């Protein structure tokens, strides 16, 4: 499954991120990496809400990926 980061930005500049296809705590590390790059680009971000995905959401992502066709399993 490819790694994917989906970002939505609303009219007030509020950001919502969705990290897909990361194993274990990799997604948290990638989010921190993104935050550091953004600070270097003049954008400070502060978390207002965060949650782990449910098993159903993760299974739905796996179902969307090519890997599901070959039976490869991934954590998220």
């Amino acid at each position, binding site marked *: 499954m490819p790694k994917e980061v989906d970002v939505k*930005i609303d009219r007030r500049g509020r950001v919502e991120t969705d990290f897909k296809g990361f194993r274990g705590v990799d997604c948290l590390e990638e989010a921190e990496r993104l935050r550091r790059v953004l600070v270097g680009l003049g954008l400070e971000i502060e978390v207002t809400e965060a949650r782990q995905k449910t098993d159903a959401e993760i299974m739905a992502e796996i179902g969307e990926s090519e890997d599901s066709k070959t039976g490869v399993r991934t954590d*998220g």
Partner: protein
Amino acid sequence: MSHIAAYKTKIKVNPLKDKDAKLNDPTWQLLKAAVEATADEIGGEVTDTIIDYYGTRQPCEFAIVTPDFKRGVGIDVSPIDGRVSFAYDSYGDRPGICERVTQLVTQNYTAMAVARALKEMHYEVDYDESRDQRYGEKMVLIRGVM
């Protein structure tokens, strides 16, 4: 484990004074691009002064002037910490241009910074825009795939 998160944002460019340094600095490049994109979106023009209700001109880093709001909306940068702020005299701003400019510059800067950050992190980046069905407000969608 995968996760979903929401963030609020604050723009703080590098507090530079030198004109050449600003031209070569990525944060100033993003701010300039965000201001120009906003002016394009609302049919405005980028200048460097705004006018208050009494006709007094005030210089600023950037300003956007539109046919509906000729006094203009200023975009300024704190020389101390680089924080970006907006300056305007909103008297008579019935079309709500001041608020719209403020929001669009913030949204455009944020979107450009996120797209650039993901590219720097070696993602393939797609950029898309949609409109909120209820209010018609712009929503930017950026997808990075690796």
